[in-house]
């Protein structure tokens, strides 16, 4: 789960990580009031969306599609400039490298006091799955795309791994600070900041904290000018405050609804809907559809606890996608029984008014019973016994329908 920069900075502030004063705004009027209250001649006017690359993004009018402004993060030197930038940002579509061509509607703005920058750094905390530990990664090449830095100048990236038993050691923090070439007051500031960030990371069950750029000011303070924070959703049971931080408008509504029904759904661009039990098998089903010349419309794992209700929801979600012209169901029964799935498919297809070709592959627990239930029903369905046959049949059915 991702949160906005202004929310991340609030977390930083309460954890003792230095940030500039700033105000979250939802209107141009609020942005101007923020400028007045900050008392800083120079402010940053920053679009708030859950995607990176905002500075280099472009703002478009949602109705006309006209380009309104280059750059989703602007430095304003006057009250008038704040007004212009806020007007160009709020209610408009920001397209960045990470949003895809559709972009994201900007409804939130962050107005932040400027500061005098001596140098920009990069800093991130994340879980390193290979090392099975929290990794703290820093670079002297701040403000740039870190993937590019890793590609071109890997020696500029410095890493430390935190042993969960030993915790973050002073010696490790110092090593990282020295590697960045910090000394004196800036180094001292950095050591304190790293400790606070690590505590914040652990106590908030973060999956990532990224600060790009982290800056050394001309008065040798280390200040986080950005805050990209994401949480590990598996830990939501112990963070009741996450509900308030969640911005549902940033999430795909269908994916959210699927999650509530215990399904795992990701929309894709093809025309063959998939309904599968198990994440690995669901991915494999997509792959096989592609191998047989089709294009999957979605990833959908109904999970181990699927029942009639969740399968009906799953069918509904698949069919809401106007691109879907056929559905492949692939079930390898383990805990889930194929006959239960078969009955659910029949009920669900009646409920949602199924009108596209349906191919069902059953294997594993009660697959014979499952096929019998389907074959004895009035439902128009092709039953097969292997995944390859299933993919072949659904691709053929779509071609037949088009011809």
């Amino acid at each position, binding site marked *: 789960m991702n949160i906005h920069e202004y929310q991340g900075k609030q977390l930083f502030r309460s954890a003792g990580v230095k940030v500039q004063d700033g105000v979250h705004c939802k209107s141009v009027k609020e942005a101007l009031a923020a400028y007045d209250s900050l008392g800083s001649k120079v402010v940053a006017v920053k679009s708030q969306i859950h995607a990176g690359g905002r500075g280099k993004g472009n703002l478009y009018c949602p109705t006309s599609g006209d380009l309104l402004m280059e750059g989703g993060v602007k430095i304003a030197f006057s009250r008038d400039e704040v007004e212009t930038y806020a007007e160009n940002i709020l209610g408009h579509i920001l397209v960045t490298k990470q949003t895809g061509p559709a972009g994201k509607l900007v409804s939130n703005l962050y107005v932040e006091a400027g500061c005098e920058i001596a140098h920009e750094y990069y800093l991130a905390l994340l879980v390193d799955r290979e090392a099975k530990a929290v990794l703290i990664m820093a670079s002297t090449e701040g403000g740039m795309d870190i993937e590019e830095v890793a590609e071109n100048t890997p020696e500029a990236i410095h890493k430390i791994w935190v042993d969960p038993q030993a915790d973050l050691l002073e010696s490790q923090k110092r090593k990282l600070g020295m590697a960045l070439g910090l000394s004196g007051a800036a180094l001292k500031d950095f050591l304190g900041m790293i400790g606070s960030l690590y505590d914040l990371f652990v106590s908030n*069950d973060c999956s990532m904290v990224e600060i790009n750029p982290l800056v050394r000011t001309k008065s040798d303070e280390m200040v986080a000018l950005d805050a990209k924070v994401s949480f590990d959703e598996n830990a939501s049971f112990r963070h009741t405050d996450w509900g308030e931080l969640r911005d549902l408008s940033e999430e795909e509504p269908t994916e959210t609804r699927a999650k509530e029904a215990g399904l795992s759904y990701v929309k894709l661009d093809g025309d063959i809907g998939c309904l*599968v039990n198990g994440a690995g098998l669901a991915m494999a089903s997509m792959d096989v559809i592609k191998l047989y010349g089709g294009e999957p419309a979605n990833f959908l794992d109904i999970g181990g606890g699927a029942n009639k209700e969740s399968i009906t929801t799953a069918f509904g979600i698949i069919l809401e996608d106007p691109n879907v012209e056929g559905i492949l169901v692939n079930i390898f029964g383990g805990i889930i029984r194929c006959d239960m799935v078969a009955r659910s498919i029949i009920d669900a297809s009646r409920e949602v008014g199924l009108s596209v070709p349906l191919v069902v592959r059953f294997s594993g627990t009660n697959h014979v019973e499952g096929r019998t239930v389907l074959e004895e029903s009035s439902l128009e369905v092709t039953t097969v016994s292997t995944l390859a046959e299933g993919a072949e049949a659904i691709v053929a059915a779509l071609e037949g329908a088009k011809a």
Partner: protein
Amino acid sequence: MSIWIDETSKVLVQGITGSQGTFHATRMIEYGTDVVGGVTPGKGGQMVELPGREVPVFDDMTEAISQTDADVSVIYVPARFAASAIIEAADAFNEIKGEGLIVCITEGIPTLDMVRSVGHISKIPGIRLIGPNCPGIITPGEDGGCKVGIMPGYIHAKGRIGVISKSGTLTYEAVAQTMSVGEGQTTCIGIGGDPVSGTGFIDCLAAFEEDPETEAVVLIGEIGGTAEEEAAAWVADNFSKPIVGFVAGATAPPGKRMGHAGAIISGGKGTAAEKFAAFEAAGIHIARDPSEIGATLKIALEQAGLL
């Protein structure tokens, strides 16, 4: 032979009085697994009725292992308690026997909880963790066998193929594929698809290399991380038996989590294409279509003079 479990393994069920725990303890016994008891804090002294036997419930793992001499524990407790259940089992096995196998089926455990429990276990040499978020491990026998997990037992048969997979149902698919060409399995292990887990591909491969009955291996990976690439590099230098490899997620879009928390392509890394390439470079026979795993296995066995 087999790896890590066999028909003599004595198994405890952590969370045995919960609905999942009781359900799967029943299925495990039906398959032939020697379930000797279980643990549910606060329910010590109770008995649980399972097919053909009643087993005792203990309050904690130390007591359970002391009383039953168990070698294996399987965890079905809810996600919020699972990491401490792992640590409790590891410490108890270490204290009493100096070794033990822990299989954690639970899904949805917070990643930092796993960082802590895996960190804890890594300092105890005799303890092995499989999972979490996995189907478990199974060694088919002549009649039944030893099943520690949630997989449908009847799809397996004793044989000479080792199976290793990050996924649940895709493991069953791989097993069905070996059966379709008349091959049974020595041991099948689902290592789970979470970002941080216990036993990895290389641990399993090293054990299969040592196991004289395992003559070939089916290895099922998925997008995300670099475990497949590392396994391939290890195989090139250390593994002598034929391997058939498949990677799920060739069609997955970057940046999207595909069900498993670990299955995400980030920053252009972790793609299926890279993993297939690493497999090929290591001499692994690849199946790009999971329905071809069986046929590919047959070719691999033939080429190795094993058919």
